[in-house]
């Protein structure tokens, strides 16, 4: 009997010929990533457990990307970045992307691929639930806590329970012009629920994958955690190779699922038949088509985060916003500094994206996680009162973006932009003509 991509990676990294779902194995770690929220406590545990003078297992494999609470006056938050800085100096870490320097990146899950740390066939752990994003590159990637991160820092290993795999097969050869990967994953989460993939892998496959860019695939795997998934994964292809090889010279070994691999379940979606979706307050599985909630009240629009703050997300939003004034307070937060620079150089009909947003009256923030998870009270775009927000982010549980009194609709950048222009929840098909095939 064959193995899935995830099973093969875990077998290889645990020195076994094969593993089966339910096996507990100790795996060798290729990359450990941490940030300003969970790095300091992980470092504290590392020193407590391994000694004040302990060194990390392999400084080439530890990546520290401050991104959560950066542009704030909160004294505790700023102290935490100081803790990272001191640790990077003490350990002589080559991959620390410090705040206030040219190397500062922003949101870790987009920065990791940009810097070449997401390579097919490898094992990546990170102290953040959206670490599963990196599975888009055909690797095993999942979120862990501070204790597990400290354990890896000292040993380079971690125990993993081999997950069962749920396969999501995409039919169709293209995404309709009004549809984004965000709509696809909101539909899936709505179908299976926020615990529909708990303890399992979500493997995205089928001919439709070819129609998806690397950033589209990252949107899918990013939100695997919102269905409870341990990891999300896409098999590598020429699109993956082109992205990875432009970013790193490090060798890697591509891994594919066997044709006779065993799956927990298989579900089919035809990309060409899907429609714009939202998740209504207060859960990512509270699905509705945009059509069903069209005209709904809003105070604010937000485009940003690891889920919806990539260059293609802003290009999509700009296509709709171009030539219009926004009727809502509209916040634009590029995930990384690389994307922020690209907003100045990428154009639509000769106008840079950043100018399209500025001329429309959007508020532009600095690259970071910003209001996706609320954060300190002075965080850019944070919902501090009873606002109703439509957002390209990933989570809308009570209080996620700030106040417990606020409400968040999750949607694609197209839908967020369409809603920003009209002032109410709006189907992007109002702006984007359907192509009749």
């Amino acid at each position, binding site marked *: 009997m064959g193995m899935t991509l995830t099973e093969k990676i875990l077998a290889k990294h645990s020195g076994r010929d094969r593993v089966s779902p339910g096996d507990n194995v100790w795996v060798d770690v290729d990359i450990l990533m941490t940030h300003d929220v969970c790095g300091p406590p992980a470092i504290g545990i590392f020193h407590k457990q391994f000694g004040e003078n302990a060194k990390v297992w392999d400084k080439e494999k530890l990546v520290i990307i401050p991104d959560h609470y950066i542009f704030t006056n909160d004294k505790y938050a700023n102290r935490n970045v100081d803790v990272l800085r001191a640790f990077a100096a003490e350990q002589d870490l080559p991959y620390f992307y410090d705040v206030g320097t040219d190397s500062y990146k922003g949101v870790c899950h987009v920065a990791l691929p940009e810097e070449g740390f997401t390579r097919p066939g490898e094992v990546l752990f990170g102290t953040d639930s959206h*670490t599963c994003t990196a599975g888009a590159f055909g690797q095993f990637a999942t979120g862990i806590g501070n*204790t597990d991160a400290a354990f890896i820092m000292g040993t380079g290993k971690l125990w993993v329970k081999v997950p069962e795999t749920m396969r999501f097969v995409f039919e169709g050869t293209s995404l309709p012009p009004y549809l984004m990967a965000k709509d696809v994953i909101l539909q899936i989460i709505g179908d299976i629920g926020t615990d529909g993939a708990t303890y399992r892998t979500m493997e995205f496959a089928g001919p439709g994958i070819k129609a998806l860019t690397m950033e589209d695939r990252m949107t899918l795997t990013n939100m695997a955690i919102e269905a409870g998934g341990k990891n999300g994964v896409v098999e590598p292809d020429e699109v993956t190779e082109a992205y990875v090889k432009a970013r790193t010279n490090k060798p890697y070994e591509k891994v594919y699922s066997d044709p006779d691999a065993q799956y927990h379940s298989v579900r089919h979606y035809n990309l060409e038949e899907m429609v714009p979706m939202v998740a209504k307050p207060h859960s990512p599985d509270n699905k509705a088509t945009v059509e069903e909630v069209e005209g709904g009240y809003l105070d604010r629009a937000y485009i940003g985060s690891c889920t919806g703050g990539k260059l293609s997300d802003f290009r999509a939003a700009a296509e709709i916003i171009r030539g219009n004034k926004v009727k809502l307070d509209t916040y634009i937060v590029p995930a990384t500094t690389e994307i922020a620079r690209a907003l100045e150089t990428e154009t639509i009909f000769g106008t840079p994206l950043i100018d399209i947003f500025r001329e429309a009256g959007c508020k532009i923030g600095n690259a970071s996680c910003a209001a996706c*998870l609320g954060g300190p009270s002075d965080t850019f775009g944070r919902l501090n009162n009873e606002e109703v927000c439509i957002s390209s982010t990933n989570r809308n549980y009570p209080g996620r973006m700030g106040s417990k009194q606020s409400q968040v609709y999750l949607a694609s950048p197209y839908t967020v932009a369409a809603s920003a222009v009209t002032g109410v929840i709006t189907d992007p098909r109002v702006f984007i003509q359907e192509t009749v095939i």
Partner: protein
Amino acid sequence: MSINQEPIKGKAFVLGKNIDTDQIIPAAHLVYSLEDPEERKLYGKYALSGVPIAESGLPHGNIPLTKEGETDSEFKIIVASDNFGCGSSREHAPASLEIAGIEAIISSSYARIFYRNSVDGGFLIPFESYEDLSTEIHTGDELEIDQVNHQLKNVTQDKVYKIKPLGSVADIVHAGGIFEYARQNGMVPAK
């Protein structure tokens, strides 16, 4: 937490389903040190402060886990419905509950990372019930968890429920966390 297998006794604090980590400890509070003995108490103060107050302490609600101005809770055992601890990977979530005085949780199911963090960090024991007990048990009921016989006794209502054995994580739970487990097995040198 109790690393021996003696009964865990205390008052129940009851919650509904999908209690995510932002409700357990809101993101604005993730900045405090977990090492500083005074600063870490703030996690006890704010534990479960993100739960809408009408749904905090069921069935009646409007009960905060820790009273205004306090960092310790009178409650020892959380009883919750499905998917407890979903959302982010913040280990501050089980840590904040432990700091508030919670020793165990009984839920019909858990999100994966919260469950793992609870076990590997040795903060508290996440027990699974066979059925959703969040509608049976009331906040303030006196509970006793019998770890050896896998039973939960509601002393107040004089009812007994079976709970699931810990399974493959039992060794880590009883060791007191992943580091203690690894030391017992020679994977990490003794201190």
